[in-house]
């Protein structure tokens, strides 16, 4: 065991030098804990020299660099060229380019709702036949991933359009182990414990939570995650699905109760750093830094698995910062629900090399080569968990693979006007003092107006 870790570490060290030296494969095939066999077979079976695959997606900056390294393995195996370009305004760009007929081959959608929109307009091509069966049997909680990638096409027939690649885990609470240790706090196992801990921290004269909803034009989305997590912890998964599909109305008492559960944390001046009025004004990128301030501005921060990117420079996850599962109520017997999100690949302009690229994404190596670079979780059940960059990611991967209930971020599944509009602004209104029932009613009215 130690030996494999050592090789992993050596490979990592090598990566930083060799990758810079020739901008090529970060790991030589055959080395490390990667699943090379399927890759070699794939390389022998496919040759697309001279062809180009154009991909656009939401990953920019260092995420683009990491994906470029994944892509290098495809290029090496097939001889095809891959052009990936990331865009900060992907959601708008892809609509313009597909409608105007200048679409790339593949698009990486951060929100299934948007992909479903385009599919219903006939702008997406269904995945090759059999892909849905493959996902169902090879992903952890496979059938739910197939459902999330299946939308009605132009004629109203359900087809599988999306293949998930890269998952974010949302039900996480981040904290500083050192601060917890010195104050003598224990990791709460149940929601009751979490609430008791929150009160305990207040009683000690400190502030338990950092919550920030600011995100430019998307201000409010972190609150939707809170409400979704609360929905899963107070209601059955079936209720959650009904809520997403608007079969359960937005102003249903159950939904209002979930919003108020969130409000119990966010609207209490004693619970939140800066007081309740600061919640809507604080940028979500800045709010986790309160955990690391000396003295701490807060002790806990509920946010998705990507948030370490915004921790202060030099913060080591696992040492200076760690996470625990956002617990469920012990008394409600709803299991351990997990909220997540993810990006999915869909075909916007088919070609042979594009199909081959989707085949490549089925290989463990396509996942492992990003897992090792960090900031990546996958639901692919065939990957070697050893390739995760660190223990904390491995633990998150474990949560994902062992979840009793996995549900996708509801706001990403709702129609864009609700999930990326009314829900966000409604939550800002709620945190700034509006009544939950009133906010929920307004959102439902917007939804009614859509149909």
């Amino acid at each position, binding site marked *: 065991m130690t030996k494999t870790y050592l090789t992993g570490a050596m490979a990592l060290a090598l990566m930083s030098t060799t990758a810079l030296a020739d901008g090529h494969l970060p790991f030589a095939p055959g080395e490390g804990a990667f699943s090379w066999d399927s890759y070699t077979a794939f390389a022998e079976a496919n040759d697309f020299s001279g062809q180009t695959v154009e991909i656009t997606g939401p990953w920019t900056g260092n995420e683009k660099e990491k994906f470029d390294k994944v892509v290098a393995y495809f290029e090496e195996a097939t001889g095809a060229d891959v052009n990936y370009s990331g865009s900060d305004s992907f959601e708008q760009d892809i609509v313009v380019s597909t*409608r105007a007929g200048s679409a790339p081959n593949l698009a990486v959608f951060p929100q299934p709702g948007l992909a479903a929109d385009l599919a219903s307009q006939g702008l997406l091509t269904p995945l090759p036949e059999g892909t849905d069966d493959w996902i169902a049997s090879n992903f952890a909680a496979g059938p739910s991933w197939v459902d999330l990638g299946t939308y009605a096409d132009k004629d109203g027939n359900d087809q599988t359009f999306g293949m998930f690649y890269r998952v974010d885990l949302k039900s996480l609470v981040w904290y500083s182990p050192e601060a917890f240790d010195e104050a003598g706090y224990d990791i709460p196992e149940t929601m009751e414990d979490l609430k008791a801990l929150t009160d305990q921290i207040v009683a000690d004269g400190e502030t338990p939570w950092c919550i920030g909803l600011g995100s430019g034009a998307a201000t409010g989305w972190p609150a939707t995650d809170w409400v979704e997590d609360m929905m899963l912890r107070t209601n059955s998964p079936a209720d959650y699905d009904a809520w997403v599909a608007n079969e359960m109305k937005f102003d249903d008492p159950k939904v209002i109760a979930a919003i108020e559960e969130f409000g119990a944390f966010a609207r209490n001046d004693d619970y939140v750093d800066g007081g309740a009025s600061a919640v809507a004004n604080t940028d979500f990128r800045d709010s986790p830094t309160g955990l690391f301030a000396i003295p701490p501005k807060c002790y806990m921060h509920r946010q998705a698995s990507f948030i370490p990117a915004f921790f202060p420079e030099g913060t080591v996850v696992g040492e200076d910062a760690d996470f625990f599962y956002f617990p469920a109520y012990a008394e409600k017997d709803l299991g351990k629900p997990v909220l997540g999100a993810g990006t999915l690949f869909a075909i916007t302009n088919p070609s042979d090399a594009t199909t081959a690229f989707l085949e490549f994404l089925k290989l463990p190596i396509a996942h492992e080569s990003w897992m090792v670079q960090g900031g990546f979780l996958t639901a692919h059940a065939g990957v070697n968990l050893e390739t995760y960059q660190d223990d904390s990611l491995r633990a998150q991967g474990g949560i994902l693979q062992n979840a009793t209930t996995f549900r996708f971020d509801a706001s990403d599944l709702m129609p864009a006007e609700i999930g990326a509009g009314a829900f966000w602004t409604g939550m800002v209104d709620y945190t700034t003092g509006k009544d939950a029932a009133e906010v929920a009613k307004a959102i439902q009215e917007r939804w009614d107006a859509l149909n």
Partner: protein
Amino acid sequence: MDNIAGTKSSLNWAVQISVILLVVIWLIPTVGLLVSSFRDRDAITNSGWWLSALPVEQNFAVKAEGEPVSKDGVNVIEGNVFGEGSGTVSKFGGRRAAPDAFKAGETAELTKGRTLTMQSNGDYVYTSPAEIKRAPSVYFAAAQPPEFSMVNYETIMGSANMDRAFINTLTVTIPATIIPILIAAFAAYALAWMDFPGRGLLIAVVVGLLVVPLQLALVPMLKLHNAMGVGQSFLGIWMAHTGFGLPLAIYLLRNYMVGLPRDIIESAKVDGATDFQVFTKIVLPLSFPALASFAIFQFLWTWNDLLVAKVFLPSNSESWVMTVKIADDLLGSRGGDWGILAAAAFISIAVPLIVFFTMQRYLVRGLLAGSVK
């Protein structure tokens, strides 16, 4: 009554003071941006830019990494919080929640019989009656001198393809400024000085086009370009910018040309000059201030443009203009690097500033033309 000599000077004072005040208010955001561009992300989140020039008392945490030694029945760790460096500790503490509870030189009684003593030079002694299993953290407050660096600028200037993006921006901007001016000057002359049926209607249409948002035209224009075979290319973006810039250009130039003295143009015509000769020899030279002021507008707008560039240029990194490069590549995923944003703003502002200062006298003249004799 306003013309009484005594009151005029005091009014002058008031005017000057309010002008200075306005200028200061207008400059504050720019100054803040400039200061932030020299600070890193953590510094920006920790304190406001207006505090950045002062040394701040900051709290630090250091792990007491030294080997525990057993002395008189207690376990002791000794060390210096500054390691190899140096500094002055003003206060210290043994808990994260109270990092500055004790003055340097005092001995702090911590929980479970542990003690911590720290001198102002950073030397500390940590004792614990029980065995020390995990290196404890010690906390201290020290004045941190203001820190500025060029790191943000180096990141931007050193990033791959930045030179390419700069050249791409020029490739887009220069033709996209010149082409609409050429077309608009002809059109403006015709609308101002040539008599033909429907002239008034045409002018009304141009004014009407001023209020059409360009976002409406993105998808149809791109479809048209694809159908024409232009696709996403520099030619396409020149055409797009030309189209989007023309209404304002024609409107501005026509209004200016219409104000030129009728006598000059009529005498030229009496002397036998054709419309083309009148245009090139008389109207164009006289309209230079208006041409220049529109050129500045169009240049600034195309230079700063992100939306049109993203729609009409291919999305690969070889065709990125500077705005796209900054927004999609440098700001990082989810745009959290404020320092880079500030520095990038100053780098991209440099060329428009040069253009503005070399041509500003025309801008003022062009805007005032016709209004003052």
